């Protein structure tokens, strides 16, 4: 009780800033998410030095070694490749693809959302109707069409994620920009003679940025899960690159014969990374948009 009053009395801006960082550190899930992500990204970058074996070198003498066998901590797959080494390498493609495509989607969605919020009623009506349709559209059709046009590979994943994420970002930016538009500071800037474009860029956009970043963080997590399934289907990252999604479908063959590890370790890695992105996003929301 006494601390609260003390904080109120000395509530100067530098103090507030420190408390934002403190709030983040105190948010256990957010901190855990950040730590997990730093570890996973570090591992992915350093995989060539960390991995005990070449992820693609099979050992026909030592096929399907069980978990914990000598030299192979997580065992080997049906071609005798070391599961741990593949696991350490396997996040690289998925992380790059998800982060890059969500960044692109954030850019497109922000531009569309701002445009929709500040355009005339008819234009914004048509735009948001299209966005509504994209919102529920089965993205798998986009993935299949892209795979038919360009060959299956990382570009199919990027195109699909961008298509799937843009409507979400657009809706959020649209809704928030509509609220901002009615606020006094926008009216004040307008009466001072600022053009709509200037108002958007220098007044409205900075106020939306935190929401966009928060939302983007969770979207990366969702799409790591989604692209893994696309890669497992054979539409995404192609062999011989070690990839978590691909490892799941390769492990499928031996899962039923009593070797669930080959498919399950990458699934756990994906789950952990996705949860970490979600936790980080939630934590950022508590800090930036309390």
């Amino acid at each position, binding site marked *: 009780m006494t601390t609260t009053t003390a904080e109120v009395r000395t509530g100067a801006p530098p103090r507030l800033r420190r408390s934002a960082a403190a709030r983040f550190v105190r948010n256990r899930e957010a901190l855990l998410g950040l730590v997990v992500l730093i570890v996973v990204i570090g591992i992915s970058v350093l995989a060539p030095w960390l991995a005990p074996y070449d992820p693609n070198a099979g050992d026909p003498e030592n096929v399907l070694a069980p978990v914990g066998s000598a030299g192979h901590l997580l065992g080997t797959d049906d071609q005798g490749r070391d599961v741990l080494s593949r696991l350490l390498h396997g996040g690289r493609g998925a992380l790059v693809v998800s982060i890059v495509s969500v960044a692109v989607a954030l850019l497109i969605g922000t531009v569309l959302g701002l445009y929709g919020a500040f355009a005339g009623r008819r234009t914004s009506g048509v735009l948001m109707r299209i966005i509504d349709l994209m919102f*529920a559209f*089965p993205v*798998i059709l986009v993935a299949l069409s892209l795979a*038919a046009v360009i060959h299956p590979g990382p570009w199919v994943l990027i195109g699909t994620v961008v298509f799937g994420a843009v409507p979400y970002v657009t809706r959020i930016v649209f809704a928030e920009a509509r609220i901002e538009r009615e606020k006094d500071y926008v009216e004040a800037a307008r009466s001072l003679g600022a053009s709509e474009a200037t108002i958007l860029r220098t007044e409205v956009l900075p106020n939306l940025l935190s929401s966009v970043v928060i939302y983007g963080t969770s979207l990366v997590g969702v799409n790591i899960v989604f692209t893994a*399934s696309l890669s497992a289907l054979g539409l995404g990252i192609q062999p011989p690159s070690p990839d978590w999604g691909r490892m799941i479908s390769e492990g499928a063959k031996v899962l*039923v014969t009593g070797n*669930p590890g080959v498919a399950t370790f990458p699934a756990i890695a994906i789950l952990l990374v996705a*949860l970490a992105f979600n936790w980080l996003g939630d934590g950022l929301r508590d800090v930036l948009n309390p």
Partner: protein
Amino acid sequence: MARRILWRLANLVPLLFGISLLVFFISKAGPADPVKNVLSEKMSPEQIEQIRQAYGLDQPAWKQYLLWLRDMFTNGGGISLSVRSPVSGIVFPAFLNTLILGAATTVVAVALGVLIGFVSGIRHGRLIDRAAMLLVQVGSNLPIYWFGLIVIWLTAVQWNWLPPGGMHDLRGDGGFGDLLLHLIAPAFAASLVSMLIIARFVRAAVIESAGSDYIRTYRSQGFGRAAILGKHIGRNILPPIVNTTGLTIGSVITGVVFVETIFSWPGLGSVLLNAIAGSDYPVIQSGILLVATTFVVVNLITDVLLDLLNPRLRHGGA
């Protein structure tokens, strides 16, 4: 009301036109020559030209589009490049199987999603609610491909309850009960994402509805808990359920395509993946057009249902 539905129907025309145009350009945009697989190196230039003419590839693009559209409706979608038989014979039976699995997936997603959402909503903040929300968080971050594998492994291998895949038992009578037995596991696996979305929305709707003033009034007047839950909260969360179900149709279709290959379900997803591997453009185009049209129609049905459920529109409003 009728005008509103007519307006929605009229909206379909430009939408379907746009989709058909996009799907048509799938074969145009690709780097591969659509008839490359049919050609062989021994053919003379005249023979190649003949084949191109047979497929209408010497015509201007707009004419090719119209020819392609005509083929869609009259010639069974043209001839498959890899099997050399009419596309409709390949695509339609598979589409029906996908439709069966999609319908079952929707039923499972709605039933379990509403159940999870309703129970955790009325027990808001209690242990069962927190457990359910943990389940939702973990479940929506699981790769659906792996989830499908685990469902097979548990139900078919470990416990031996259900068949490990396929649509009918080869030695069985192929009856409805047999189909139902084969449907349970893939429908459950495919419903994961949409089920959890529905659960989250229903939970929020129940919490909001249970906290509203009129519910408190009923409670203070001594109405039974069951009556309040069933008659008032239940009715209030019906529109959000329909709305959310409509929004998750895309997830259902995506889930079904993921699951089909795992459960060796003879559906359109498997057909499309094979066609992509073989650059069989007529099959790809018909399949995608069919699924996209289904999506648009289901979307229309949800919109109309929502209109019908909206009392402000039902009683003669605009």
